[in-house]
């Protein structure tokens, strides 16, 4: 039981707000898809990644703040 608790605490180092972590994961997957379908424009995946992360951060913080 304690091991399980420690595993969850370890996971908690990376995942606090489940939706926030999920949204970040979706951004990474989208960037990977863009990198796969547009290998001629590799910077496009980077733009998706950067803009996506900033968007997720701002969206999550403002929604939490106004809740």
């Amino acid at each position: 039981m304690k091991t399980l608790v420690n595993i969850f605490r370890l996971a908690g180092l990376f995942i606090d707000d489940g939706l926030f972590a999920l949204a970040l994961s979706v951004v990474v997957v989208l960037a990977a898809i863009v990198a796969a379908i547009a290998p001629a424009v590799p910077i496009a995946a980077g733009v998706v990644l950067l803009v996506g992360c900033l968007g997720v951060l701002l969206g999550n913080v403002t929604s939490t703040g106004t809740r």
Partner: protein
Amino acid sequence: MILTWTSAGPAVSAAFLSSLVEAVEALTIVLAVATVRGWRPAGLGALAGLATLALIVLALGALLDRVPLHALQLAIGVLLLLFGMRWLRKAILRAAGVIPLHDEELAFATGTAALREQAQHDTRLDWLAGLASYKAMLLEGLEVVFVVIAVGAGRGLLVPASIGALAACALVAAVGLALRRPLARVPENTLKFTVGVMLSSFGVFWTGEGLGVPWPGEDLAILGFATLFLIAAVGAVRLVRSPAVEPLP
């Protein structure tokens, strides 16, 4: 591979600042144990925690050598993104007054009170005090290990990142031993804010590298990402700041 300050500097700084936060948290608990039950159980527990950490670092180090570079960069980048943006999000919400600031003084008082109560029940349970110290050192130390691996692995920056982390731990230990008080005066949220910005920037950079993105300026792109994250974070604080929170001087 010759290391320059341009490549090693951000890794040292990120590892130093991240580790500073974790070391302060670990030291707070160790000091609480030491104050109530003495330095012996606190010191033994902390040393046992450090020994366990050393084993984990050795195990992870061996594994890292066998992982392909791009897969490693991608895994590290995603880990850093989750880790750093989680910190940044909390730091923004704390700075905006949406959630309360973490109070090291309160953590110290809580830990001390719990151990005093325990001491009244059984004076021979020093091993429990040592265990509290052990767990604090192990769990906070694990965060430091993840930061060092995340910041340093993949491009031969493990040594600079380790130096940054060790410097932070040594600094906090020296200050803690000298003051024998919780480091409540360290502006934790400011540290977490800065660290969150840096780790998020590293996360975007490494994830992109793992996906084969040729970042303009290579490593210097991290500074650009940090600037963007900082602007976004400060803007977010202003946007969601509670009216009850006084503006910072």
